[in-house]
């Protein structure tokens, strides 16, 4: 009988302990910046807006227990309360874990695995939370050969989303490879920096221009504010939240932000690029075509480019043998279509050539196309 009472009492006590340990789950968690090198400072945010304050009181202590890739202290690590039921921890992964970037990426879990909990675990705790490290966005971008790309974290995504439309409140990381454009040679070698010259809604509002001469401070009018971070090897990154960066309000209309990237002294710049808002209508990408597909020296060559960037005006240069002709591409709606008709009949009359070298650039000398057009011999 005593044994039975002992067992029942033990069961009740165990049940009480178990009932006290409340599972909590963040509504979302994300990183700022969206994309970061493992030796960069990053902040992980956890939003418990939907968790009852009776379980997780406002600003109550919250700790991280992490086991992958390791637990650097063999102990729980405190988070900071941001207020508004958001907690955060700021760290530099390589310093925090005592590992190199390569070791972090090479870890078999390919993720930071951890949980959040109260000091005694039993009051409240999450299940396993995961921030993946299976993609090295920066080295992947460098290997892609792309001039630029962007990533954002939004919509409950803990992972950065490449090339996804963003909201004015999204964390955006823009990556730029200075090695791709020859004129950015000094930026590629790290001799000069890269800045962003940008504006809200096709430069209609809230422009943040690059002021090379504003060298003091780091307010929105300064060169410091617009500067990209050099991650090494000519790869640059800029992290921003659109409405904050452009000094707008969250509720201000945001359909896109348009920008160009500039080498320190304006000695080089890219064409205009656009990042569209999630709910904006995204125009189709530019398309260049030559008409007709096969052409002889007795014909009229038509060069067309549709869906041009706003403010981009194109010109062509055609070289055949020792002769070069050039001209502008025109259009009544230049964003929709710019076109040039080239009279090969007259321009290259009597020449014995088998191909034409065609180069198309914009007004900033940015090369859109360079290639050879073979010439057909008429029967």
């Amino acid at each position: 009988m005593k044994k039975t009472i002992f067992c029942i009492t033990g069961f009740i006590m165990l049940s009480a302990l178990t009932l006290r340990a409340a599972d909590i789950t963040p509504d979302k968690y994300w990183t700022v910046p969206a994309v970061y090198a493992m030796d960069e400072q990053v902040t992980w945010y956890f939003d418990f807006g939907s968790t009852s304050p009776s379980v997780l009181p406002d600003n109550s202590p919250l700790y991280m227990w992490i086991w992958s890739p390791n637990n650097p202290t063999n102990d729980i690590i405190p988070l900071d309360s941001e207020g508004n039921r958001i907690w955060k921890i700021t760290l530099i992964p390589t310093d925090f874990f005592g590992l190199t970037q390569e070791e972090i990426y090479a870890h078999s879990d390919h993720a930071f695995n951890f949980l959040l909990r109260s000091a005694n675990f039993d009051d409240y705790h999450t299940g396993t939370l995961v921030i993946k490290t299976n993609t090295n966005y920066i080295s992947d971008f460098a290997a892609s050969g792309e001039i630029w790309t962007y990533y954002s974290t939004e919509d409950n995504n803990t992972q950065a989303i490449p090339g996804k439309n963003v909201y004015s409140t999204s964390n955006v990381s823009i990556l730029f490879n200075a090695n791709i454009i020859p004129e950015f040679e000094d930026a590629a070698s790290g001799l000069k920096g890269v800045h962003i010259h940008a504006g809200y809604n096709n430069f209609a509002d809230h422009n943040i221009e690059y002021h090379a001469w504003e060298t003091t401070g780091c307010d929105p009018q300064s060169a410091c504010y617009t500067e990209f971070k050099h991650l090494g090897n000519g790869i640059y990154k800029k992290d921003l939240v659109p409405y904050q960066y452009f000094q707008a309000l969250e509720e201000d209309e945001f359909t896109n932000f348009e920008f160009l990237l500039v080498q320190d002294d304006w000695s080089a710049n890219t064409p205009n690029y656009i990042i569209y808002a999630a709910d904006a209508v995204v125009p189709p990408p530019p398309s260049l075509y030559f008409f007709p597909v096969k052409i002889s020296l007795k014909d009229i060559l038509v060069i067309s480019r549709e869906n041009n960037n706003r403010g981009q005006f194109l010109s062509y240069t055609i070289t055949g043998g020792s002769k070069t002709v050039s001209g502008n591409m025109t259009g009544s709606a230049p964003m929709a279509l710019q076109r040039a008709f080239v009279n090969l009949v007259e321009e290259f009359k009597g020449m014995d050539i088998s191909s034409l070298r065609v180069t198309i650039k914009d007004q900033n000398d940015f090369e859109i196309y360079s290639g050879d057009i073979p010439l057909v011999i008429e029967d």
Partner: protein
Amino acid sequence: MKQIKYFNGSFLLFVAIFIFTGCADTDDGSYVSPITVSEKTNGDWHLLNLTQIDETAKKAGLNPSEMSLTDQFEFTTFGITLNVDDDGNPTSYAVSGNAPDIFNEQGYWSLDTDFPQTNGTPPTILLYGDAAKTQKTGKLSITGIPGATPEMELKLTRTSNNVPFVSYQFKLTKNQ
């Protein structure tokens, strides 16, 4: 006397028949030779519009396969005169205006057929560099033969290894 009356009556009847028969004489018509292609196509023609056709794209179903050149390079000044001799036979031709030379601007011409073909194949203007018409320099298909409306359509097609790759479709109106 009675006989004379009969004679006179018969004579009058004969004359009447003769006269009225003459009025109702059947007109068999005189011989008129059929209208030749040369008759329809000779003269001064002026450009209404010009379309460049990408035959490769057209065959592959790609767009664009046609491009208007009418407003380019002064093509609106393009004119062509197709001369004939007194018998209506093609002789020389000359291109006028400041448009690019899509084909030789002067020479001689002939037709591959005197009359429109019943199988629908368009008649073709053959272009020559010499009066003897031995040096062929090009050919223009008459894809639209002038009729009640004095308009003509000519098509110049370039081929490579016998495969068409580009054409120029001229729509012309006759200078009255």
